[in-house]
């Protein structure tokens, strides 16, 4: 798509040049804000991106059979208001510019209300709990004046609805253990339905679940009243009140807790809620000007324990879900979970209470296709320039000795490796069309590159930190090539590219030391059977808190139609992801084989997982011998299975897996005590530099798309004062 003409200059004034480094969510958000029509072309943005595709940790590509190959599992939450706001505006703009043609954003997102967690059964083995979360009014990204999820009334209304869902609507089920070859007679559904109703009612009465649930619900209403009276009632009195409520409710439940999995979860959920409520008052979170940040020096579990949660609740899958969703394991070690308590509580509030529509929103294609391709097209049309195959090497500061009196330090130059040059110096055209959708390919288009054929033979890995081959070097200088810099690389990459800043600035040094990251691993399989045939009997959704190394599974069968399987598409697709432990010693910067070795490790992990663990979720996916039914996997190069598919584990090699070990791809953690060391994009220590990413102090302060988008909006504000901070949704939040 050609950029629109005449957008670069504002009268006779040349636009201010912004160099945006990195093409992930934060950088894209910053670019989108800086180039809004209201600025009338005052800013010209150039995005510098290593490799051939935008996206950063959110990138995806299209491989064989057009199948989607993601960096990891990318599910958007219904509370991602900033991310959805910008994305919806992007889609609207594209349609407007295309005379109303084009897809609506909601055609490409699938609301998902089913969340499941896995846990150890009291009777041995695994048991799963699944809930259908009730829809919330509105859609994510809706204006707040029509539907504000941040009011106390909304929080409590959602709290009641959530309690009802969790306590009355959670289903407990266990893998049946049926083998693939067993054939069971069809049940008499009508007879079973009435029996099931009677049995359910009798069960509820026997265990008093309804009574207990209602007590918990009413206790919540009482808390609402207590909170509203906070100004008049001494705080320690309210604390005593809360502790009394907690004791009364706990007494209700303790009598019921037994070895029954079905009621055990109710107690764990209520226990966690009570501990959070007691803790909120004991730690004066409502009156502390720091809000939930006041408890960020505690680990989340530690804080729950301090506030009376039982060990059972602390170890329950309902606690683990927060850690697993945030990949909160130091060095990727499953035995070292760690998450700042304030971040955890804020995330819980946002996730459970502030979602609109559904709690989860899955994309109907890759994140690159649904998010970054439209943003690329919209930004191009606005006049943004894109420089692919540019890897940042160094951010050089001005000589401090030459600063004028009172002048702040600033970025003097940006040094790049140009990884590849295009033929004729033309702009690289990064997108391909698959089934009518603009997508990012899984590999660069070598035909556009000088020496592309050789690069393909040499197996150049443009996204690898350890592949340092380049075609040229480039130096950009302040006032000549740029005026401002938005540094949107991942925090893991900062030591390599900001050594000067880190050496001279103690705050930056503390930030890179304390704000830690973790590598991740993921794999995707495409299957010739659907979930029911695999033995998963409840509505498909997303499950977490399962076994390491792949504790999170998402059913992604809905993306198969967007792929290009031709005659024999798979029946479903499944994505798995988790943390990946670091090796004892970090690799040398020239160890070009490191990513491949880690990839082999992920492959082995995936095979072991499919052989040993998946049967707890998909009992019909294993043979009598216990081994995974490898013939279920669909080969993209031979999908019609004319030959009988091999039943050997080598068939896994036709699937997709990834070890995300590049420093910029590592997932940021929110460790206890680390958030205070984050630096905000608003920080003006270097007066022509701002930073953007989910690793910055962006208020949400947890690794996710929403935090990155908020950070990008903050970076734009830092440069041009827009958007107003009050318009960054959820920025001002306890």
């Amino acid at each position, binding site marked *: 798509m050609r950029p629109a003409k005449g957008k670069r200059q504002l009268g006779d004034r040349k636009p201010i040049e912004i160099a945006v480094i990195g093409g992930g969510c934060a950088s894209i958000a910053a670019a989108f804000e800086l180039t809004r029509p209201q600025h009338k072309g005052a800013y010209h943005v150039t995005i510098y991106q290593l490799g051939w595709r935008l996206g950063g940790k959110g990138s995806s590509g299209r491989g064989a059979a057009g199948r989607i190959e993601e960096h990891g599992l990318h599910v958007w939450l219904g509370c991602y208001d900033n991310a959805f706001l910008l994305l919806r505006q992007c889609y609207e703009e594209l349609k407007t510019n295309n005379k109303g043609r084009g897809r609506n954003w909601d055609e490409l997102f699938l609301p998902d209300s089913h969340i499941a967690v896995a846990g150890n059964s009291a009777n041995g083995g695994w048991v799963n709990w699944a809930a259908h979360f009730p829809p919330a009014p509105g859609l994510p990204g809706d204006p707040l004046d029509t539907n504000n999820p941040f009011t106390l009334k909304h929080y409590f209304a959602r709290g009641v609805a959530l309690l009802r869902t969790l306590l009355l609507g959670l289903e407990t089920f266990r893998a049946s253990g049926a083998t693939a070859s067993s054939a069971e007679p069809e049940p008499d559904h009508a007879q079973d339905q*009435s029996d099931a109703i009677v049995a359910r009612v009798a069960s509820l009465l026997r265990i008093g679940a309804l*009574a207990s649930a209602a007590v918990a619900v009413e206790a919540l209403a009482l808390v609402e009243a207590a909170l509203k009276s906070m100004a*008049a009632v001494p705080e320690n*009195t309210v604390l005593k009140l809360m502790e009394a409520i907690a*004791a009364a409710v706990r007494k209700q439940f303790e009598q019921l807790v037994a070895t029954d999995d079905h009621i055990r979860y109710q107690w764990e959920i209520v226990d966690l809620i009570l501990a959070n409520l007691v803790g909120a008052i004991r730690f004066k979170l409502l*009156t502390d000007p720091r809000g939930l940040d006041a408890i960020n020096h505690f680990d989340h579990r530690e804080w729950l324990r301090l506030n*009376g949660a039982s060990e059972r609740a602390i170890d329950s899958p309902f606690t683990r879900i927060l850690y697993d969703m945030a990949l909160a394991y130091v060095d990727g070690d499953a035995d070292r979970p760690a998450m700042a308590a304030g971040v955890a509580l804020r995330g819980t509030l946002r996730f459970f209470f502030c979602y609109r529509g559904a709690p989860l929103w899955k994309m109907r294609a890759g994140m690159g296709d649904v998010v970054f391709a439209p943003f690329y097209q919209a930004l191009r049309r606005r006049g943004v320039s894109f420089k692919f195959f540019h890897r940042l090497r160094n951010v050089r500061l001005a000589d401090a000795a030459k600063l004028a009196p009172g002048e702040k330090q600033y970025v003097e130059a940006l040094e790049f490796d140009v990884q590849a040059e295009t033929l004729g110096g033309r702009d690289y055209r990064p997108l391909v069309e698959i089934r009518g959708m603009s997508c990012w390919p899984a590999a660069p288009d070598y035909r556009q590159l000088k020496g592309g054929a050789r690069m393909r033979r040499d197996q150049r890995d443009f996204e690898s930190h350890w592949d340092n081959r380049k075609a040229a070097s480039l130096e950009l200088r302040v006032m000549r*090539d740029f005026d401002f810099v938005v540094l949107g690389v991942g925090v893991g990459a900062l030591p390599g590219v900001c050594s000067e800043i880190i050496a001279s600035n103690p705050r930056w040094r503390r930030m890179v030391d304390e704000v830690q990251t973790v590598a991740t691993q993921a794999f995707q399989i495409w299957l010739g059977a659907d979930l029911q045939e695999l033995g998963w009997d409840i509505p498909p959704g997303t499950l977490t808190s399962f076994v390491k190394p792949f504790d999170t599974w998402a059913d992604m069968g809905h993306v198969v139609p967007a792929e290009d399987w031709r005659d024999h598409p798979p029946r479903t697709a499944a994505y798995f992801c988790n943390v990946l432990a670091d090796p004892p010693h970090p690799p040398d910067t020239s160890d070009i084989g490191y990513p491949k070795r880690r990839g082999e490790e992920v492959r082995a992990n995936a095979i072991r997982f499919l052989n040993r663990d998946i049967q707890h979720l998909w009992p019909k996916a294993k043979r009598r011998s216990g081994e995974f039914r490898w013939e279920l996997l669909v080969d993209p190069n031979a999908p019609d299975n004319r030959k009988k598919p091999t039943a050997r584990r080598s068939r896994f090699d036709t699937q997709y897996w990834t070890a995300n070990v590049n420093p910029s791809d590592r997932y940021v953690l929110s460790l206890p005590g680390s958030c205070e060391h984050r630096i905000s994009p608003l920080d*003006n220590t270097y007066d022509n530099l701002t930073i953007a990413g989910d690793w910055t102090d962006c208020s949400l302060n947890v690794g996710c798309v929403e935090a990155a988008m908020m950070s990008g909006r903050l970076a734009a504000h830092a440069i041009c004062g827009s958007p107003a901070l009050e318009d960054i949704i959820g920025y*001002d939040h306890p």
Partner: protein
Amino acid sequence: MAKRPPTKKRSRRKNPDRNGPRRGAFEHMDRNGDGPALVSKTVQQAITNMVQLSSTVIEEQIRAGQAAAARMRDGIANSRQLNTDVNLVIDNLVATTKDVGATWLDLLSIMARSINAQPSGPTTPGGPAGSGSSQPRTISQTGTSGGAATISNITAADPAISAVPPEIVVTGKGVQKVVLDLRPHAPRFVPIVRELLASGQKHRLSAVKFRLSAQKRLVLAVNVPRGQAAGTYTGVIVDSSTNHPGGTVSVTIGS
């Protein structure tokens, strides 16, 4: 990229108005429309608000229990297997939700003691706040009246309150059972019964009232008019002067 001639003056960022988010919770509530009007100004108002809220809560949860029971009944009625045992199960479900109302009243008494800053022992994390007073005792009396089984319970929050279960007098046809659960919180407790509802809000029964007998004893008079629909009718008892909830009553009418 074509290099532009260097600009003459280096562009610099302005200092932002602030460097971080506003985290105060009450500020957040104000910003998002939970203004000061919703926050109690005095202790008395706080108690009043809580009392009003609690009355609504009890009624709402009883209605919710009734609605759930009605749905359950409808579901089973359409199935091939329907028997009296199922109806009994559903009735017990409704009774259970009413029992929750009693639990709510327990919580209210805890709240009242806490708000009035009663002396209490040291608290442990998650442990109960010491109350310093003995637990209220429930006194029950069963009987029959007008062909209906009657159960009259009284649980006085204060030992100074005379804990004599009120008599229940039933007139009208078809009444199977009447259960009264009275929980006076103060000696000067003058109860009135709010309208009883059944099947969500489809059926109403208002002829249930307290009166004093010739012997100046409290009596619950249940007068069921002809043609009253079958069902279990439940409602809240409140103090007529303060609107403070003080119990529940249920009347089961057979078909």
